[in-house]
């Protein structure tokens, strides 16, 4: 009975084959799609590198009600797959085609003709995709709320501008490593997408303070901002950002090498929900900045993760300022060469649940006294 039920494809709504990715081949997907037909709503073929267009074309024909499809790292698929998806899968809401290097703008065109309800799209590392494809896609799919295009060198300000203009619902934008995206794109996003919650600009090296100012004027709901490696950003940019974006929770400022304690002071005084802060490689940060963080009115309740690795000026005194951050769970101190064992020990004594990550051997509780006494073996006791 169970067997029958289990094999009845109509009971399968969500299928994730990630665990079996090495073994999944075309026929598996073909059988699956024939069995499940219109019942299948969510399929993940993440990492199934041997899957080809043929299997996915059959799949698209059979499973027309698919809502979420993950094809991450299916390196063999080409535009043909996306064409059949555009033809049949009109209910598709979530599509992940990242790391499929064969796909081009034609895929985006095909998808834009059929999948009008698309909300979530990930085209990271599809290195052939350009502004044109993004333009066509965003014009046709105004519901897009999540747009992820990491590592695409051909995406420029123009593409992101079109996205911002047509998809004003945008909640999450990730353009990590798109070297040609700069301030203009961010200005357009802040103008049109007021509801933006999460933005990742890591390694977009052209971004400057202008972008931060624009975000400050437009996106007041911003919660997550990742700008690691944006070396042009300075204190003044973060000042205008923090004055308006009070909801910030997660900030990744790794390698923003120009920022100083002033930025931390602004963060501490304006952003009271901050829970994760990454300051790795911000070499100008000193104990004074840590004092701001530690003395912020909300830091004791919200701050859980603080990454200070490779901040050469931070000393044990800085750590003492953190003793009030009672909810702090993890602190990274790798390569802060002025931090000593004693400093870490003092901090741990005050915050016993904190995980301190440093090159020193982790502090272990002293071995329990007693039990080291002479013992008798069992037979001696019997005797």
């Amino acid at each position, binding site marked *: 009975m169970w067997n029958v039920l289990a094999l009845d494809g109509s009971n399968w709504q969500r299928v994730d084959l990630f*665990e079996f990715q090495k073994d999944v081949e075309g026929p598996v997907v073909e059988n699956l799609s024939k069995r499940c037909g219109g019942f299948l709503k969510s399929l993940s073929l993440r990492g199934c590198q041997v899957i080809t267009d043929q299997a996915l074309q059959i799949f698209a024909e059979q499973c027309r009600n698919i809502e979420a499809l993950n094809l991450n790292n299916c390196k063999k698929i080409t535009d043909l797959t996306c064409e059949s998806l555009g033809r049949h899968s009109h209910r598709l809401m979530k599509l992940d085609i990242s790391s499929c290097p064969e796909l081009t703008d034609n895929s985006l065109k095909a998808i834009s003709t059929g999948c009008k309800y698309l909300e979530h799209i990930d085209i990271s590392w599809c290195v052939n995709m350009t502004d044109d494809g993004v333009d066509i896609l965003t014009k046709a799919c105004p519901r897009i709320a999540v747009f992820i295009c990491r590592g695409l060198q051909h995406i420029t300000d123009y593409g992101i501008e079109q996205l911002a203009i047509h998809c004003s619902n945008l909640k999450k934008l990730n353009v990590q490593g798109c070297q040609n995206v700069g301030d203009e794109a961010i200005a357009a996003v802040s103008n049109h997408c007021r509801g933006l919650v999460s933005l990742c600009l890591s390694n977009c090296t052209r971004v400057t303070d202008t972008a931060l100012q624009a975000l400050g004027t437009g996106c007041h709901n911003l919660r997550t901002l990742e700008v690691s490696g944006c070396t042009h950003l300075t204190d003044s940019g973060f000042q205008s950002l923090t004055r308006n974006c009070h909801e910030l929770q997660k900030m990744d400022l790794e390698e923003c090498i120009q920022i100083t304690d002033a930025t931390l002071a602004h963060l501490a005084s304006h952003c009271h929900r901050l829970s994760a802060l990454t300051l790795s490689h911000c070499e100008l940060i000193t104990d004074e900045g840590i004092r701001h963080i530690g003395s912020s009115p909300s830091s004791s309740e919200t701050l859980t993760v603080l990454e200070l690795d490779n901040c050469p000026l931070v000393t044990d005194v800085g750590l003492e300022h953190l003793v009030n951050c009672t909810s702090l769970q993890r602190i990274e*101190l*790798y*390569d802060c060469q002025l931090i000593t064992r004693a400093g870490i020990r003092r901090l741990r004594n005050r915050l016993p649940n904190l995980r301190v*990550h*440093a090159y*020193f051997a982790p502090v272990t509780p002293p071995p329990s006294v007693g039990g080291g006494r002479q013992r008798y073996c069992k037979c001696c006791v019997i005797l």
Partner: protein
Amino acid sequence: MEDSRGPRLFADLNHAFRKDPVIDEYDFLPVTEPQNNASPLLLVEHKLGLELWSVRLLFRYAYNRLMTWRDRNQPSSFIDPQELTNLTRAVLLIQPDCYTAWNIRKELIDNGDLSIADDIRLGQLILTKFPKSSETFIHRRWIFQRLVNQCLSSSNDSTASADGHHDNGGALLCMDGIDIALGPDANVGPNVNGGEAGRRAGGAKVNAALPLESSRLLAENLHRELSVCERAADSYASNYYAWTHRAWVVQHCFNCSLRVLLGELERTQTWTMKHVSDHSGFHYRQFLLTSLSQRASRLHRQYAKSLSSLIDAEHDFICDLINSFPSHEALWYHRKFVFHMMMSSSTQQPLAEDSAAVLNGDVLHGAVLKSDGQKRSRLEHHSPNVLKQEELDSVRKTVSQTKESFQKTLAKRYQECSSTPIFKITFTVDRRCTPPDSHYDPAARDIVRVLTAGSLATGVRVYLIRIQLLDLAVQSGVAWSSCHQHYTSLHPCFSDPASGSGSPVWGSLVILSPALHQSSSMFFRSSC
């Protein structure tokens, strides 16, 4: 807590390699405890130092992750190929004998996730720290074999597409008799362009570009490989792994091209001069000379050099070394080898000359005769007996002149060996003649008796009895040492049941004087 440092150290290591992809040396620094909260990885001028305390943590982290991933019984989590490459690198830098990690790298190469050039570079780096790592050499052999095969297949396929491939594969892989075009630039330049064009065209051309790519890699790395071996031999005494690998490269990748053999002979001269007590280098030279002697006629044809002049030069070289660096046993052993080679080639000489003359009586040959005529080597106009007398005289002179006692001992020992008549008898025993249930081959045993008796009668020392079972993979060491104990009768291993009763076993019995084979004389030094 303990675990948190592992990932960080691993990230540090990857960062170091990203920062400086051409790290050419690394070592562990004797820092057992972290002094300050600084990264234990130091990168100075392409040299990487790891503080000792971090090595264990890093290895444990990388190894555990790798093995959990590899474990077929556990539901393995997915690891990105790039990450796998980094993990294997971390493991191998610390423990290069972990062949699982090497095998994972082989798979990565097969899948195209790891570039062969990177892998070759890693092996090179590991050999600076662990110059005797056999697994590393084995892996390198696998890489080069793969490259060679790819080139060969391309030259075979190229009948269909008769563009650049043929020259390329053919020139590089020199089927018998064709020398490799040396100097990678001359050969590679056009091919590289071809490869890029192929890649740009994409699609169907990709497959065609693969052999091109591999031949380019081969051309770039083969010559470097020889110097890698030299460096490994430099940094560890008696590094036979390195020399064996070098010999393998010469044999299998250069196909014993004369040009390479001659070049190697010249190149190792300085090395041996720097390491006079290290026999491994001389052993390699012996390999070179033997390979050259097998190609004596072609050597004459192509390079206008006679084998005898080479041996002669080698003899002068070794005598010179013996005089400059007295009391080194390895030198005397090499002299023994060279002298034997002189003797055997002086007996064969006329034959070789004749055959060369018959083969090509052309202008080149005339030139050879002329050039050789002015400075004919000792070998060519001395009979073996004269040669031997000369050799004995010179050794006697050494004995009388030297003041160092060990040098004297060595010279005397050499004198003894060379004064005994060289005595080589080879015969074949056909097992088919004997009943399958017999453990001893009566015929063979009798012959051995006769021989030993005969040598006793004439006062010749029998230094070695070596039984070669031609199609039996009996480890020579086992067979020889047992022969040593029972050399008046044949040991049962000669008719090993494993050889399969009924199937014919061909064996040859060789009695050699140590002048023929110095390494075996170390096993067997007993007179009867």
